């Protein structure tokens, strides 16, 4: 139906829209003035533990976090 229109440069380099959008948002957050910058960065902080399962049992979880390990 529609031919493949010229893809945006980030799509041509293998990046998805979500990755592009998140990179843009992070760059904007890093350019904010002080109280807003720390607010924005702390709001977007993530912390989660991922564990793979093998033979019905969870293996040791890997922690992915923006806060350094206490």
């Amino acid at each position, binding site marked *: 139906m529609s031919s493949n229109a010229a893809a945006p440069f*980030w799509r041509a380099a293998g990046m998805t829209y979500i990755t592009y959008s998140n990179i*843009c948002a992070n760059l904007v957050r890093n*350019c904010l003035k002080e109280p807003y*910058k720390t607010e924005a960065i702390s709001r977007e902080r993530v912390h989660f533990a991922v564990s793979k399962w093998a033979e019905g049992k969870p293996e040791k979880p890997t922690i992915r976090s923006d806060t350094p390990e206490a």
Partner: protein
Amino acid sequence: MLRRATTLLTRSTIPLRARPFSTDVAETAPADSTFSDAWKKVVPHIDPPRTPLTFMKPRPVTPSSIPTKLTVNFVLPYASELSAKEVDMVIIPASTGHMGVLPGHVATIAELKPGVMSVHEGADVTKYFVSSGFAFIHANSIADIIAVEAVPLDRVDASLVQKGLAEFTQKLNSASTDLEKAEAQIGVDVHSALNSALTG
């Protein structure tokens, strides 16, 4: 050859049973009458259960005359900046260029690029720098604008923007893989948009 011309000319151009398009949503959710009748026969004293369709608000009707104001819903993942606010115009930074949206604008879906969005209400103009997102303009003059990050321009630090621009221009020159080039290019685009937003 033209024996049937009169028949062909006088036949109705409207198809005999005009079928509605499947994408048209009914304006009021239809309540299933066969179900409610069967229910009432078995359990007359309890109301029939409501189905999910009856809970959904039907699509608002497109008014036949152009409304005087545009209703804007501007949302971010963590906050609802503007919620059903009636304004005169919004200028959105679409990837095809800055686009002014007035009441009665044709239904459009626009991908936004990093840039300034301005909301015009009478004599007030509120500007936000939008990192990226989408704008859905519906036929009934309701605009839904969604962005990942949007900040008023006075919260942006000019020196950090300059530093970022210099850093990414340098990264763009020294990038080797496609992905690095793309990331550096994104950095240059965002910082130059921030720069022109602050100076423009």
